[in-house]
Every structure is written in C-alpha cells, then in structure tokens.
C-alpha cells in the first residue's frame, strides 16, 4: 500500500502545479495532433477529448466532464477536479510519388478544471486546441542566379495553434436532464518563419519571421438526458464567430468558422462495462464557400470501457473526414486502446492510451501513432 500512497501524493501535487501553470499561460505546445492536410487550410481541428475518451475512440467525450466537447457533461463533476492530457505523436507521411518522411511532436491538447458551485450547478473551464497550425516544410530547388544554377533549400515553418479557452457551466434542470452552456474565446498565435538557404555560401541565408495572432469567440449549448438508468444520450451544438488573423497589429484575414453539432449515446452494461457512440457534423465548406479545398465533415466513433472503476480497460474506433485537402475530402480512421488507474483513494487517476490514425487524401497518406497520458486529480 505504501508505494501507491507515495505515487498518489506525488501525482496529486504535480497535477495541481501543472494545472496552475498551464492555466496561468497556455503554451504553444497546447496543441493537438497536426496533419499535413491542414497546411493549405485553416489548420487541423483539435480533438476535444480527454485521454480517457480518446482511448475509447472519442466515443465517451460527450459524457466525460474532462473532455471539452460538451458543457452539459460538467454536471457530473461533483467535486473540484482538474484533468490534463498530453501526448507524443510519431507521424509518417507517404506522399504520392514523393519521399516518405517521419515527424515527431509532443503536445498537451486539453486541460479542464471543473467544480460545483451549488448542488445543481457546476462550472468549468480550461482550454483545448481549436486548430493546430504547427507544420514545417522544406522545398529544394535549383534557381538561376546571376547566370549560374544555384541549389537552394526553403524552410517554411509554422509553430502554434488557435486555442479554445472555454468557460462553461452545466445545470441539472431535472434529475435526468442536464443543460450546458459555454462561452469560448479563440485565441493563440503562430510563429511563422521562412528561411532560404543557398548551397553557395557567398549568398547569406535569408530568414523572415513573424507572429500571426488569432482571435475569435464562440458559444456552445448541450443537453444530457438519462433515458433510463443505463442509457444516456447527449446532443450538442456550437457556433463561432469569424476567426480573425492579425499580423503586426493589422488584420490580414477573417475566416468563417463552422457550426458544429452532434449526438451521442452511452449504455452502461452493468457495473463493469460501458459502450458509447457519437456522431458529429461540422460545415467547414458551408462556412467558407470560396475555399474549394474546404469540406464539410462527418465523424463517428464507438468505444467501450470494461472493468472496475479503479482499473478500467478502454478501446474504440473512430472514422470520418478531415476538413481540408485538395480534391476529394480526406478521410481518417483510427483505433485506440488504453487503461486507467485510480490512486489515492480515488482522488487521482492516471490514464494511458495508444492511438493509431490513418489518413488518406488526394496525394497523401498519413499514419500516426500517439502515446497519450492523462492525469486527473480531485484535491
């Protein structure tokens, strides 16, 4: 028993410190899984899921108070709690006719803090990734300079994201119905750097950098209904203002953001198993008809959690589409699994998950392995 108690004490302290630091200043690392398909668009949408939900394919997200997908789920946070998710991704790119390459990134895609203020009202907040805009490309070419063929290498990198800072609340209007409302502040920045290197050292490397800052706002509403003791359904809707991009204090673009809506269902098959499924739509193309590379998306997920509350095993699958890509709408299929472990008498929980995503689009295949780790504490 002693080692578990020591681990719990350390984990609780570390979790609280990490939560405080992250809330004080959201870092750029607070981004989600990136994708090459987001480069030509606004970015790669984040996954608004805790490690627990993501390990089950995302299916538990509408019912998980620590997944920043719906506000109504906050109603289940009966004590002051905080949860943070982190993950390391190994991404392989397989462009059609191009060389394969491997990328690696570490991210902290979600943080949620929630707690009741009355017996029926729970408020929560935190942040997650709305759009990830971290990427880097290297272009090699030979240009004619001063009458001489000159090999060059251009690096164009973007590091940052549009973060979704959420303040939400859930009220249990009846014993079986919870209503959630949320206000979302979209904020963040990307540091963009363009560098040209010449093979001939007579030419100096040219580098240009700038910071693009983003701002916007949104609102969300969600409903959680217990149809029976074992069956619960959820529905949510979200809309956002235009996403404004500023460069040097000057607005350079304003992009419409999609309306999102979805529904989910969870069935508790006894005390040792839960099965859930969700569907979600986002009308990216409708929001920006001028962008031929933007597509409306439909995503689904199913997942299960088996075992005791203290040491559950989770697995799930997801599928759907990605919003940006040349030609046909890119698709995404994923499989995930994970485990959880409660400690300190249920005051802390450590979740570990592994996710495999396969994306396909015109001209590119992408495979991603992501190792996920999440910590939830109830001080």
């Amino acid at each position, binding site marked *: 028993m002693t080692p578990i108690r020591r681990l719990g004490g350390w984990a609780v302290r570390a979790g609280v410190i990490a939560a405080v630091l992250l809330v004080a200043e959201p870092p750029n690392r607070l981004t989600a899984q990136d994708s090459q398909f987001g480069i*030509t668009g606004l970015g790669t949408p984040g996954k608004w899921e805790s490690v627990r939900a993501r390990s089950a394919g995302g299916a538990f997200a509408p019912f998980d108070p620590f997944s920043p997908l719906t506000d109504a789920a906050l109603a289940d946070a009966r004590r002051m709690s905080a949860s943070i998710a982190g993950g390391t991704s190994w991404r392989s790119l397989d462009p059609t006719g191009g060389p394969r390459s491997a990328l*690696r990134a570490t991210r902290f895609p979600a943080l949620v803090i929630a707690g009741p203020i009355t017996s029926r009202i729970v408020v929560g907040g935190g942040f997650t990734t709305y759009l990830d805009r971290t990427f880097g490309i290297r272009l090699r070419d030979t240009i004619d300079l001063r009458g001489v063929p000159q090999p060059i290498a251009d690096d*164009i990198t973007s590091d940052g994201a549009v973060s979704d800072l959420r303040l939400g609340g859930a009220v249990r209007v009846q014993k079986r119905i919870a209503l959630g409302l949320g206000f979302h502040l979209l904020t963040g920045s990307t540091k963009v750097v363009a560098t040209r290197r010449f093979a001939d050292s007579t030419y100096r490397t040219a580098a240009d950098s700038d910071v693009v800052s983003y701002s916007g706002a949104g609102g969300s509403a969600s409903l959680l209904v217990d149809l029976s003791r074992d069956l619960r359904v959820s529905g949510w809707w979200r809309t956002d203002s235009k996403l404004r991009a500023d460069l040097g204090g000057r607005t350079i673009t304003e992009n419409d953001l999609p309306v999102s809506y979805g529904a989910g269902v969870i069935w508790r098959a006894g005390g040792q198993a839960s099965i859930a499924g969700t569907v979600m739509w986002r009308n990216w193309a409708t929001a920006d008809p001028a962008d031929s590379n933007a597509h409306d998306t439909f995503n689904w997920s199913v997942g299960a959690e088996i075992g005791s509350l203290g040491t559950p095993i989770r697995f799930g699958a997801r599928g759907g589409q990605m919003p940006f*890509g040349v030609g046909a709408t890119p698709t995404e299929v994923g499989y995930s699994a994970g485990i959880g472990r409660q400690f300190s008498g249920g005051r802390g929980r450590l979740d570990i998950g592994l996710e495999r995503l396969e994306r396909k689009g015109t001209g590119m295949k992408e495979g991603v392995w992501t190792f996920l780790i999440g910590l939830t504490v109830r001080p």
Partner: protein
Amino acid sequence: MRRLRWSLLVLVIAACAEQSTSPGICPSFCPGGSISIKDTVFAAIVERDSSFRGYIQAYQAPLMIAADSPGVIDSRPFFTSQTMFTRIKRAVDTTTMPVSVDSLRLRLSLMKPSKQATNLRLRLFTLPVTVDSTADFASLDPFFTAAPVDSVNISGLQATPGSTDTLITRFWKGTTGICPACIDSVRVDTAGNVLLMQGDSSLLVYLKLDTLQAPLSQPDSGRLAFGIRVAADSFASVRLATVQTSAEAGAQLNWYFHYADSTATKPDSVSHNHQAVSTRFDSFVFNPPSPALDSNLTVGGVPSARSLLRVAMPAFLHDSIDIVRATLVLVPVSAVPGIPSDSIELEARNITADLGGKSTLGASFRTAFMHVGSTDTVRLEITPFVLAWSVDTTQVTAIMLRQLPEAATYTQARFYSSRASAFRPALHVTYVHRFQFGAR
C-alpha cells in the same frame, strides 16, 4: 519499478525531440506564398566617388618590393643599419678596447617569394648612410648601377639539399630571434650564404660579408647602408619584410668581432663576440613612379592612394527586403603593370564618418584579389555593408577602397569612376522580398 522509471525517462527524452519539418509537396501540401528572390544591377548607385593619395609612404610600409622587369618596373629597396660600437668595455674595469671585425652576416626576410621565379638572385649595393625618405630613384641610381658588393642566388639555395648536419641545423635554429619550430630546413651554399626556409613559406637569407664589403666605419658610428636589386630569368620580384612589419623583421646585421682582453687573470687573451644591429631606416624607390591621380578611381601605389565610393541607397533597399548578396563591380581602366606573378589585394572597408579623404575607417572589411596584367572586372563581395545600410539608415553609405598592404608595392589599380557612364562602378544586389505571411 526501476525498469519502469528508466523506460519513462527514455520515453520522455525521445518525446522531447521535436521534428516537424518534412519535404514539401507543393502546391497540394504547402502554405500559400513563396520566397521571392530578385537580382538587380544598380548601375548608377555609386556617386560622388573620388581618389586621394598620401596615406602611407614607402618608408612606412610593412613590406618593400624588389622587382625588375625592363621597360615595366624597376623597384629597389634599401636600408640603413643602426650604429655599431667600435670599442668595447673590458670586464674588469671601465677601460675600453677597440674591436676588430672578422665578418658580418646580413639577414633579409623574404616574404612569400614567387614560386614561378627562375634563377632568382639578389644583389647588394653599398649606399651612403645618409639615405633617408627624401631619396628617390634618380638620386640612388648611381649607387645601384655600381658594382654590387655581394650577391646570392636564391633559386640556387632553394635547390640545394637541406643540411642534415646537426651541428649546422642546431646552430641556425638556435640563432637569436629565430623560432626553431618554424624552420623547415637549412640550406647552405658554397659561399657560406644560408637560407632558412620557414613553415609559412617565407625565407630568411643570411649573406656572409667580409670587412671589405662592409667595413666598420668609425666616422659613421658603424652604420651601414645597402640597396638591393633583384634579378631573375623570369618573374624577378620579391618582397622583403621591413622594420614596420615588426622590430625584428627588418634587415639585420650581425657583426662578428674580436678584441684583446688583457686582464690580470687572462693576460694577452683574445675574446670573440658578436653583435646584432637592426634596421634604422628602410624604404624603396621605383621607376616609373606612380602616375598622378586623374578622374578615375586609383587604389595602391606609393604614396598609397585610396578611393572613396559613396552609395546612394534607393529607398526600397531599406524596406521589405532581405539582402542575400551584394557585389561591388569595378571595371579596370587598364591592366595593372608589373611582374605577372604579382597580385594585388584590394580591401573595401566601411567608413564611420564621411570626411572625404580623411574619412574614418570602420571595422568591417572585405577583400578581393586582382592579378597584374589582367583587365578582368573586379568583383568585391560587400554583402555585410549593404545589409547594414539597409537595416540602419543612420550609417554612412560609403566605402573606402585601398590596397593591402598599403604602399608596399609599386602596383596601382585604376578603375573607371562614376564620370565614365559606360563603365562606372555598379552594385549587383540579390535580395529576397519579405515573405507574405498569411492566416493560411
């Protein structure tokens, strides 16, 4: 548990190494915008350029050149030595005894002699000890056309096998003022002249002189003056270090003498000793002299000439661009006359205050070489200057051209100035436009 901790540590370290850059597949998987590069020759950007002469005199130069190419150039270095005592104090009291000179060694430092020179010889002429900075080619010509007091065949010495006699090599490597590790080999000819080949390809030549060739003159306080002429089958040119290079680098005379040391303990004995004396004054004269300044841009010659080029930076070079290369293009008026194996090092230096010929030189410089006899366009890479000018509008947008080292050689480069519209100096600039970052 221990294994788990190590595994976690390895995982954390691996995870921290970010790699987010991949080969771009454009245009499908590339952001909008591209890096745009331009290459422009600014033909009329250099203006109000002019030349000035008189910065460094021949006797202030760190090198002096000996060259002889009939009808082209005849350059003759000369030097005077410091005084040499004629009496020496005895060890036991203050009484002095006269010294009797046995022989002398004259050391000359030859800097990077041409490898193309064949049968390269140095000839030594006696000059009056009164020679100074007022001496010119004509006034010294009678002394240089008299019979030489000595000569040495440098090519012959170089062709001589290096001495393997440890007594000889140890003696010369142990000579005062010599860096033993710098000596590559020791070569001795039949006349007793010695050549020390140094690691930096410079040569130390020791000429053996007797008292007839170099008498110890009491009225002259032991001072001597010698002139040097060079001869060769081809490429007769050699540069000698001067006392301005360093105190020990100039010509050096080593007097070997004896004197009667009739002390009580060693009655009627003879003591031997030697004394090294350094250069008092050195310079060189040449014919024909450096041409007078004209409307062209002149660099080099003696006294040294510099050219000031003012650059009128267009406004757009200050804004929204990143300069990746800037080259100053200079068109020679004519080929630089001289020994074809010689080359000229040109230096472009920024200036911190534009005061015309007295402009204050800055710390940044760039160099380029041009060859004697060549009329090729000279291109000086001055990227750091133009980059600094584009960023800091308070900087003086001008550069000073000069030869390195100044006044060390007769060579003088002349370039067309802004007065010659067809061949005026130009600035070739390659620049990158600011990247148009966007939200996508």
